[in-house]
């Protein structure tokens, strides 16, 4: 096997040094009663060429191809990834290294993550960002746990227009620890109805997502007004960070924690993972933050360098009292997103964001013109809700035969929204694609 360099000769000599008669003899410390009696019943080994065949054939059974036109967003977004970014993240000095616990030989990762933290903080309008969490969903759950630590309260208000899967993850994280979760309903304009929250007294956090699951931009100023001068922390989440290239970021509205999914920035969709949990907050809360942090310092010769810092928050030091149990995070995805942001630059990011908005507005206009209803009036970024007439299911199915997926039906998540679909348009769709889609939907 090409990954196993030891020859029979090596093995014989090494066994002698190890004091074992044969390879089985190395396991003498395992009691007989604990030994496995059967061989591993696994297929293979396959040659590389057999593997390529098998994998390529399974990959071709997926709705992801050059001809496929997928108009789904809902927490995972199709954006062009430049060849330079794919190439750079493949540098094995980044991908095959461990967590940078030995800073002298990890400066590449450390500086790249420091730059990532800087970019994310700036993008979200916050003071500090961590080195990443698993994904947007766990980032939201961690944000609420952090709010509970800071406020010493165990009740949270969560908008029902936060991604349904993210809310499901929040429940998994919070319920066993005895938290109370109050869901805030959606209003007729497609934004969270804050009316239920006369006062935030007793709440650890108020969490909203913007753009929310319907693609609508939330009234973040209203949430900021509610939580200002209270114990409750304002948690703003997101699934499409590109929106902040166009719209104001949550930091400016008084958010205490901003967190979400960063997959949009150069990370392949990969059927949902790995993603990138972006997590940012304020300096005053930094000791309560989960996850790793990279900080700047100097070496013994006075040169600038970077290290993991404030590690006493973490599980390997504080064990059960740590701010989170996280160890392995999404480091390479974080670095990838920084490579992507650097490639776009400030100017490019604004232009790309605008292009997403304009294209999605174009499809919205075409669909409205074709007589379909756009039920929520609030501004959107690159996805929006459409109400199709009864019987649309058959059109939706038929389009799939042509490898066109016209968004996702919302009834599975919001039973009252039967006939409503969530559609997403990014820069990957041309005007011709959009015209074709509008034409196909009309029939």
């Amino acid at each position, binding site marked *: 096997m090409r990954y196993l360099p030891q020859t029979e000769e090596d093995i014989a000599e090494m066994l002698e040094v190890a004091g074992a008669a044969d390879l089985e003899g190395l396991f003498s410390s395992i009691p007989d009663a604990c030994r496995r009696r059967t061989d591993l019943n696994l297929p293979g080994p396959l040659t590389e060429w057999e593997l390529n065949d098998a994998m390529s054939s399974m990959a071709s059974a997926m709705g992801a191809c050059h001809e496929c036109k997928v108009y789904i967003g809902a927490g995972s977004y199709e954006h062009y990834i430049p060849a330079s970014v794919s190439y750079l993240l493949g540098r094995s000095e980044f991908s095959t290294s461990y967590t940078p616990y030995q800073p002298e030989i990890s400066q590449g990762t450390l500086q790249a993550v420091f730059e990532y933290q800087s970019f994310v903080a700036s993008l979200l309008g916050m003071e500090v960002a961590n080195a990443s969490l698993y994904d947007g969903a766990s980032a939201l759950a961690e944000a609420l746990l952090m709010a509970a630590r800071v406020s010493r309260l165990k009740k949270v208000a969560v908008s029902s227009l936060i991604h349904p899967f993210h809310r499901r993850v929040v429940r998994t994280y919070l319920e066993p620890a005895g938290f109370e979760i109050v869901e805030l309903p959606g209003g007729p304009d497609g934004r969270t109805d804050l009316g239920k929250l006369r006062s935030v007294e007793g709440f650890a956090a108020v969490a909203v997502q913007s753009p929310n699951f319907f693609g609508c931009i939330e009234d973040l100023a209203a949430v900021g007004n509610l939580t200002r001068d209270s114990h409750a922390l304002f948690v703003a989440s997101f699934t499409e960070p590109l929106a902040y290239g166009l719209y104001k970021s949550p930091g400016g509205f008084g958010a205490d924690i901003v967190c979400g999914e960063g997959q949009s920035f150069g990370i392949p969709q990969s059927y949902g993972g790995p993603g990138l949990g972006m997590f940012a907050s304020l300096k005053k809360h930094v*000791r309560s933050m989960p996850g790793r942090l990279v900080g700047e310092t100097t070496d013994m010769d006075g040169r600038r360098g970077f290290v993991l810092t404030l*590690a006493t928050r973490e599980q390997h*030091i504080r064990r059960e009292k740590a701010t989170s149990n996280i160890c392995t995070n999404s480091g390479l995805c974080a670095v990838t997103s920084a490579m992507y942001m650097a490639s776009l630059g400030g100017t490019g990011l604004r232009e790309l964001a605008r292009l997403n908005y304009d294209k999605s507005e174009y499809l919205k206009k075409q669909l409205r013109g074709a007589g379909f209803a756009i039920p929520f009036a609030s501004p959107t970024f690159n996805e929006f809700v459409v109400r199709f007439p009864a019987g649309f299911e058959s059109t939706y199915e038929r389009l799939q035969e042509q490898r066109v997926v016209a968004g996702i039906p919302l009834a599975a998540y919001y039973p009252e929204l039967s006939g409503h679909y969530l559609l997403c348009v990014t820069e990957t769709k041309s005007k011709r694609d959009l015209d074709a889609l509008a034409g196909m939907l009309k029939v």
Partner: protein
Amino acid sequence: MKEISELLFPDDIRYTKDHEWARLEDGTVRIGISDYAQDQLGDVVFVEVPEVGATFNRGEECGTLESVKAVGSLYIPVSGEIVAVNNDLEESPALVNSAPYGGGWIAEVKPSDLSELDTLMSSKDYLEMLKGMTQ
């Protein structure tokens, strides 16, 4: 880390087995950590001091000290109410290392039972304990 003989243990204060010290000053007890404790912990980077007004029973955790790679608990040597804390530590946690019995003090306690102080170790007993530990 230093040898025990290189460390200082003033005679006018009392010590606990958890390496805190306590000094009676005008009816209140000033507390901190010993020279041995600061040396073991290494460069202190952050001190979480107790809240003024909080009360603790003897031996309860009332704060933490952090170095780069360790967290140490501060257990209160005598029962009582916290009446003052050393706010200088916020800016200069290194005082705990450079002057553990002086500028690196952590809090002042109004003791509820002054006789508890007598049950703490003298510098001689404390030094004996440390020597026993390292052997």
